[in-house]
């Protein structure tokens, strides 16, 4: 058996194979490469797909792009009329640094902003909190007060760009800050366009950036959905995410199922509040991972749209066709990138991006080749953006919607992925819904099992990762790595102390008292957080109010 160091390209001829006494196929046909072809979710892939593999009612099941159930895409012409948004995640260091990176990317042709925050911000800590030690400005931009937010968007007219903010536990604070910055630019909330991720259910399942336990966290998400439905018609108040679930180890089917289950959970909570589904559903958005299994990912996108449309119309009685549409952002799979031979990642990302486009995504982030080592360098981030531009302008795949529609394989696989996901969704319904399932650790356990199984497959070389367990090389390609200046932490601490010192103490304490009271009531918290933010309360201070009111979450160890 080859030791995996180098491998010839010639396939083995039957008489070279091990003499194990097994019957050989006819001499003219080489032995099959792998007796077991499966998608990453474990769905067996047949040696051939024919018309017989397509369901008899295929035309009705699949429909046309822009029509229920939207299997083929949300719009009749898709990218012929308008390309997907090229939205590259950016954020590091201080607000000034990220503001510079924003301006750079906008000048390079990026069409929407996407903000990454540092760990202390994501977890609701100010830079001078002991838990923030060593982490300020590292994995994203440090935003602790309205002052930071104003600097972050300096020179960027908020009525002319859309901004996605990847923030969850303290999302209501960042949303309030964005609105306040808009106010200072003379732009009212109803003119602001963008997304705040604010999907706490997937935090408990996968990403694990939380402050409070599940039920109060979901309450705050619903507050945002409710408030934005009334005051921010162009704003996506939640991005129901599969990306993190996938990255934590879920299969494509599990990613699809748990994300949709989360969506069902939010819809049910909103309806419990008395909202009409058509009031808020058009502004729910989604976020998929795009992983390596090319056709399975395309099937997942298509199945996702079909499942959601059917649920919204038939289970929740939505009347507005825009309520039936699963609008999604997509990001190529970070977890599929390798530190070994990082240039290979450019090829991976290109294929994944193509799958997302053939899957019909509304917006796309492509990872940079050096992202396993650290935050991307400017050069690597540019190549990632160019990958999308090459797809859009050179490849011709935008000329017609859902180019793979009607393919025997794609339709069969879409049906299969849908069926498997629905099984999970039914099981979660039977448990009493996703919040209960999360409290019991059900999706967490499924994910841990899939992750462990995958790792074992890789270590047994049943799954190949090029450059890692096959085609390895000894040389190390030097990719310039972005180093974060530890001065940033010191400066950010100084700045937050200055903000606390110079703000109007009276306005601050009135706003915080009102917020504290509101937390213990049934009132919508968004206006109270807005007042606190305008009074320059810090992110950490507002998060502490939540900690006091709702407690701090500790998860069970689920294996």
């Amino acid at each position, binding site marked *: 058996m080859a030791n995996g160091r180098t491998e010839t390209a010639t396939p083995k001829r039957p008489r070279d194979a091990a003499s194990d006494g097994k019957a050989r196929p006819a001499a003219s046909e080489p032995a099959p490469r792998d007796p077991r072809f499966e998608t990453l979710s474990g769905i067996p892939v047949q040696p051939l797909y024919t018309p017989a593999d397509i369901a008899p009612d295929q035309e009705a099941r699949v429909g046309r792009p822009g029509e229920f159930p939207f299997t083929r895409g949300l719009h009749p012409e898709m990218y012929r009329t308008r390309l997907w948004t090229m939205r590259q995640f950016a954020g590091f260091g201080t607000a000034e640094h990220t503001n510079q990176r924003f301006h750079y990317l906008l000048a390079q042709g990026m069409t929407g902003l996407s903000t990454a925050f540092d760990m202390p911000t994501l977890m609701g800590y100010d830079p001078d909190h002991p838990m923030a030690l060593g982490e300020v400005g590292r994995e994203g931009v440090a935003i602790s007060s309205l002052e930071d937010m104003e600097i972050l968007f300096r020179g960027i007219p908020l009525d002319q760009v859309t901004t996605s903010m990847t923030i969850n536990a303290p999302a209501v604070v960042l949303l309030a800050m964005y609105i306040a910055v808009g106010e200072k630019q003379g732009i009212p909330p109803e003119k602001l366009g963008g997304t705040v991720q604010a999907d706490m259910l997937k935090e408990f399942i996968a990403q694990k950036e939380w402050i409070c336990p599940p039920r109060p966290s979901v309450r705050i998400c619903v507050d945002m959905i409710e408030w934005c439905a009334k005051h921010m018609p162009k704003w996506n108040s939640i991005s129901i995410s599969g990306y993190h679930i996938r990255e934590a180890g879920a299969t494509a089917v599990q990613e699809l199922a748990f994300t949709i289950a989360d969506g069902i959970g939010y819809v049910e909570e909103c309806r419990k509040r008395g909202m009409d589904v058509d009031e808020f559903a058009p502004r729910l958005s989604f976020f998929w991972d795009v992983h390596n299994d090319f056709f399975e990912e395309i099937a997942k996108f298509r199945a996702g749209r079909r499942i959601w449309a059917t649920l919204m119309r038939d289970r929740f009685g939505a009347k507005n066709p825009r309520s039936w549409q699963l609008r999604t952002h997509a990001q190529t799979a970070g977890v599929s990138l390798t530190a070994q031979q990082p240039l290979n990642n450019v090829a991976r990302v290109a294929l994944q991006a193509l799958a997302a486009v053939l899957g019909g995504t509304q917006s796309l982030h492509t990872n940079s080749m050096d992202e396993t080592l650290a935050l991307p360098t400017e050069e690597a981030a540019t190549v990632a953006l160019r990958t999308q531009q090459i797809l859009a302008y050179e490849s011709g795949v935008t000329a017609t919607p859902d180019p793979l529609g009607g393919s025997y394989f794609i339709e069969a696989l879409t049906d299969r992925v849908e069926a498997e996901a629905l099984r999970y969704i039914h099981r979660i319904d039977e448990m009493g819904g996703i919040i209960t399932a999360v409290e019991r*650790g059900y999706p967490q356990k499924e994910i841990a099992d899939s992750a462990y199984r995958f790792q074992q497959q890789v270590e047994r070389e049943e799954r190949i990762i090029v450059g890692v367990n096959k085609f390895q090389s000894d040389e190390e390609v030097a990719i310039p790595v972005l180093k974060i200046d530890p001065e940033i932490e010191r400066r950010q601490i100084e700045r937050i102390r200055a903000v606390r010192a110079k703000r109007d103490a009276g306005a601050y304490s009135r706003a915080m008292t009102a917020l504290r009271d509101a937390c213990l009531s049934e009132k919508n918290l968004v206006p109270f957080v807005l007042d606190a933010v305008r009074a320059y309360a810090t992110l950490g201070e507002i998060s502490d109010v939540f900690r006091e009111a709702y407690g701090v979450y500790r998860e*069970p*160890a689920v294996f």
Partner: protein
Amino acid sequence: MTAPASQSAPSAGTIAEQILSGDARAVARGMTLIENGSPEGEALLDRIFGKREPAPRVGITGPPGAGKSTLVAEYARLLRGEELQVGVVAVDPTSPFTGGAILGDRVRMGEHATDPKVFIRSMATRGSLGGLAARTGDLCELLDAWGSRVTLIETVGVGQSELDVAEASDSVVVVLTPESGDAIQALKAGLMEIADVIVLNKADHAGADAMEAALRSSLAFRGDKGWKPPIVRTIAIERKGIEAMHEALLEHRRYTGAAERAAALRREKTRLRIRNAVRDGLLNAWLERQDFDAELDRAADGVLRGESSPHRAARDLTERMIRHGERTN
């Protein structure tokens, strides 16, 4: 090169002194000696025996997902609020296939993770043929010497471990939830037999009333054994009901502490403890001395060849071992 631990290891007497002065590292190392069944461990136990008042041991068991860890963490918080030093032994199952274990109970106890007056030790069952209760009890003795005023023993109520927990504890709390119906069927009457206090956690969930009623009726079947286990409702994650559980435990302690009962209980426990230790000691000594594995292989081969039934083979082997023991004495 190699630096085997025994070369520079302190004596049992030294470790004992360190433990009595509250040295956590010494406690931990003492616990390892005991878990590994080493003679140094036994010497250590001899040294610390009777040096401190034993702390009441509260066993907390129940089906997975009942919220035991959260309850233990919240109870420890209450006890710390009364300035009491707290010991926690958290038991999790060893995988019968690999011999390894994931001990994850500390995760929920983050609040106490830097409190020097809370000692948390995670213990794997290690697939013992009995001996788990003894080992748990031994660790509790070290915690007594360290200065614990209450020791909490947390286990999952599956397999035999709930019986072990009963043996090692002075009071047993069985934690259930409104959803535990199936679990109780599966886990049989055992749980109900050993419970001194029943906690109905997640009491805000649907079905709490029905579950409480079901529990009351199954308790009625226990007959009148003197102590009637109260049913306490809690919502551990919101810190509700912990005081009530504490009161129930204090009440149980007063009940068992009443002179007549206490003496009889103590005698029974001591007898049981010695009996189990002798049983384990004899068995281990014999197994080591008589090349048991080889005998076992021979017996198994015989059975596989069809020469005798497994029962016969076992009986023969036992008789031979007894005769051998008599001869060498």
